[in-house]
């Protein structure tokens, strides 16, 4: 069965420090992987995706993520955190073998950046 795990409910980082939000996945075939961000009282905004190719993908607002097939992980990273990065972050996966386009979502990680 397809699944996504975000092992940390909350991540606290000081402004200016690097941040990592973890995500691991389980699919039958090859994964399409996505990160979305949700600001308070807002919808979900697409950040970045991995489909194929370079394992390091770059996205919006200076975020990047690294696909690691052996560890089935897709951790979100940013070299220098901003207070405005504080939000809820969701990892999602779609199985390439799946004929529909349903996204399977992680439970979300609350990122708090302290000044």
């Amino acid at each position, binding site marked *: 069965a397809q699944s996504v795990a975000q092992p940390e409910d909350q991540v606290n980082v000081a402004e200016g420090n690097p941040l990592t939000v973890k995500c691991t996945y389980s699919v039958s075939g090859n994964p399409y992987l996505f990160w979305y961000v949700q600001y308070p009282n*807002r*919808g979900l905004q697409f950040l970045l*995706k991995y489909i194929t190719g370079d394992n390091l993908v770059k996205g919006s607002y200076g975020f990047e993520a690294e696909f690691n097939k052996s560890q089935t992980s897709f951790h979100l990273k940013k070299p220098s955190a901003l207070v405005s990065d504080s939000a809820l972050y969701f990892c*999602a996966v*779609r199985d390439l073998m799946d004929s*529909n386009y349903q996204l399977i*979502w992680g*439970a979300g990680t609350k990122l708090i950046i302290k000044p």
Partner: protein
Amino acid sequence: EPEVTQTPSHQVTQMGQEVILRCVPISNHLYFYWYRQILGQKVEFLVSFYNNEISEKSEIFDDQFSVERPDGSNFTLKIRSTKLEDSAMYFCASSGPAGLGGNEQYFGPGTRLTVT
């Protein structure tokens, strides 16, 4: 930049009443979705829609739910007889050309449904 829009932003209804949540997907998108998020919980897939029919639905999407694309622009979610546990934020999403499962989904701002 094109965006998905949803109306209303907040809907309050009494248990047992019917509600219709409306969405206008991005105009050249072909796949449409509804998700819900109960406060503080994870996002849950409800249904996907392509070529004027449901392509996939979850266990949550029972006979009380239906979707429709009544014209070329709107995509609606109807709940026939609302229950207290239907209270949630409902998100509409759309994605691009057919056959490209790697296309990201673009989400609307959501409709907060409160069932009393």
